[in-house]
């Protein structure tokens, strides 16, 4: 484990965040991999500092119509190419999806606190829809040490896990067009009894409804679980306090997703 997660386990988080940089990059590909989902590859002009899966970047969409940067998880990184997987949901992602090859972008990276790995017998990775982008780097690093569950609306979104097709992935679709018919949390709960026999930890990323359902099925046992949260951000650097999520800390309930997160202990946040 130590080798895989040198930064999260050895280096103190404050040191990690010291290593952020604003790096110029050039778009090399920006392809629609599934309907409404794009894989963006950016060739960075200088190497990004080591990152922890779950960390994210703030990217400046090269268009004056977009005022703020937008946060995206580090999907993959092979020096000097940074990959982001994104879904078109609004103006920024719409414009980004139309941005051509060779356009220049600025990428502030790597940001936030990624997944923290303790020694466990088994890891379970759960994601729904575009949530796969937040755990993809983790899946790649953990390889066969983890069980991967992925839920999506329909078969056509399976393209999102094409890059991890060397690993076994349990799939659910809402319309039953592939794999388990239902939500990914329903699917997980079917395996939970078996999984619980081991000392496991769950890593999850997906829509709020998925995280809430997950919480419900884990509530009784308070299974260790880390979740990657999303919030609207202005700075991504902890400067504005715009991106908070409520936690159980009564003294200071609102924590910054970009700074104290985006990965939080499920049992410390109020979903």
């Amino acid at each position, binding site marked *: 484990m130590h080798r895989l997660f040198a930064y999260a386990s050895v280096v103190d988080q404050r040191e990690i*965040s*010291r*290593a*952020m*940089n*604003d790096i110029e990059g050039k778009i090399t590909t920006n392809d629609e991999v599934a309907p409404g989902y794009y894989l963006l590859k950016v060739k960075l002009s200088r190497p990004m500092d080591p990152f922890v899966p779950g960390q994210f970047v703030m990217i*400046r969409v090269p268009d004056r*119509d*977009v*005022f*703020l*940067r937008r946060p995206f998880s580090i999907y993959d990184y092979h020096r000097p190419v940074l990959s982001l997987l994104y879904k078109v949901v609004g103006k*920024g992602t719409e414009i980004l999806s139309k941005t051509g090859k060779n356009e220049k972008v*600025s990428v*502030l990276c790597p940001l936030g606190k990624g997944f923290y790995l303790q020694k466990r017998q088994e890891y379970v990775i759960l994601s729904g829809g575009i949530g796969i982008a937040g755990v993809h780097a983790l899946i790649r690093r953990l390889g066969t040490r983890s069980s991967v569950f992925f839920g999506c609306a329909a078969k056509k979104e399976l393209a999102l896990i094409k890059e991890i097709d060397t690993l076994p992935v349990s799939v659910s679709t809402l319309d039953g067009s592939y794999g388990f018919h239902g939500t990914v949390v329903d699917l997980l709960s079917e395996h939970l009894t078996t999984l619980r026999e081991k000392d496991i930890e769950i890593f999850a990323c997906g829509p709020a409804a998925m995280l809430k359902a997950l919480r419900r099925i884990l509530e009784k046992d308070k299974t260790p679980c880390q979740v990657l949260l999303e*919030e*609207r*951000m*202005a*700075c991504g*650097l*902890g*400067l*504005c*306090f*715009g*991106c*908070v*999520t*409520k936690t159980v800390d009564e*003294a*200071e*309930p*609102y924590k910054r997703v970009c*700074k104290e997160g985006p990965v939080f202990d499920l049992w410390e946040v109020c979903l």
Partner: protein
Amino acid sequence: MGSLSIKLFGKTLRNPVMNASGTLGYGREIEPLWGVETLGAYVTKGLSLNPHHGNPTPRVWEEQRGLINSIGLQNVGVDRFFDQYFPLFQEKKTPIIVNFFGFTEEEYIACAEKIRPHRLIIALEMNLSCPNVKQGGISFGKDPDLVHDIVMAVKRVTKIPVIAKLTPEVKNLKEIAQGAYEAGVDGFTLLNTIPAMVVDVEKRTIPIRGGLSGPALKPVALKAVYEISTSFPVPVIGAGGIMDHTDALSFLLAGAKALQVGTATFIDPYTIPKIVKGLEEYLKRCRCPSIGAIVGAARG
């Protein structure tokens, strides 16, 4: 080469560029990118007597060339600020301006009293946009008499120079400034954000009501700086939509002695060091001996 240093309230600052309150966290968050000693002075996040939790999300929303925020003044309280975050500024010998607020006159006073004079604290900046809970929630900064009284009360309990940070949503800015001036205020910061709102047309909801900052505010802030700096013999610090050193020059030429940069930092976190560099180059290009020489130069 010309000098960027300025004198403010009797202290010398290395340059006239500050962050705007609430836009550079507690200061240390920017350290991975550049050091707080780059600043002429660091302006604290708005502090209060007791900690404040702030508002639920969404707290930020993008507008056309502008940002709407409704952070709700989340902060750790003035005590914890000095325990936990002030040491960085001591270590780096960076002057600070303490921005603070209250929801009652008593809170303002109690908060100001807690801040003991220190050679690095060059001023207290009173955020007057806060709702006065004892007066139906209308903000202190909208009434000249309220402004007069609260500035007077704060001046009475502190030896540190006091800056009034004004809100644009007033009937007559000059009248408000007059209230503060008569109470002995030492300077002004102009402007705070303008109240604004967003409608989500798809969802038919109002996702956020908050304060508008950024370039949209700039021409309004420039007018305020001009008006107040020509009317009162105390320094004015300009803020509102400064994105680059040209914007910074606009404010200086209109009469601001120093500047605060807020929203721009969110888009390019290097904006402040870039502005400092841009101003340095400007002085060189214009063979201008000091930045002070151009303050108010556009006013004719």
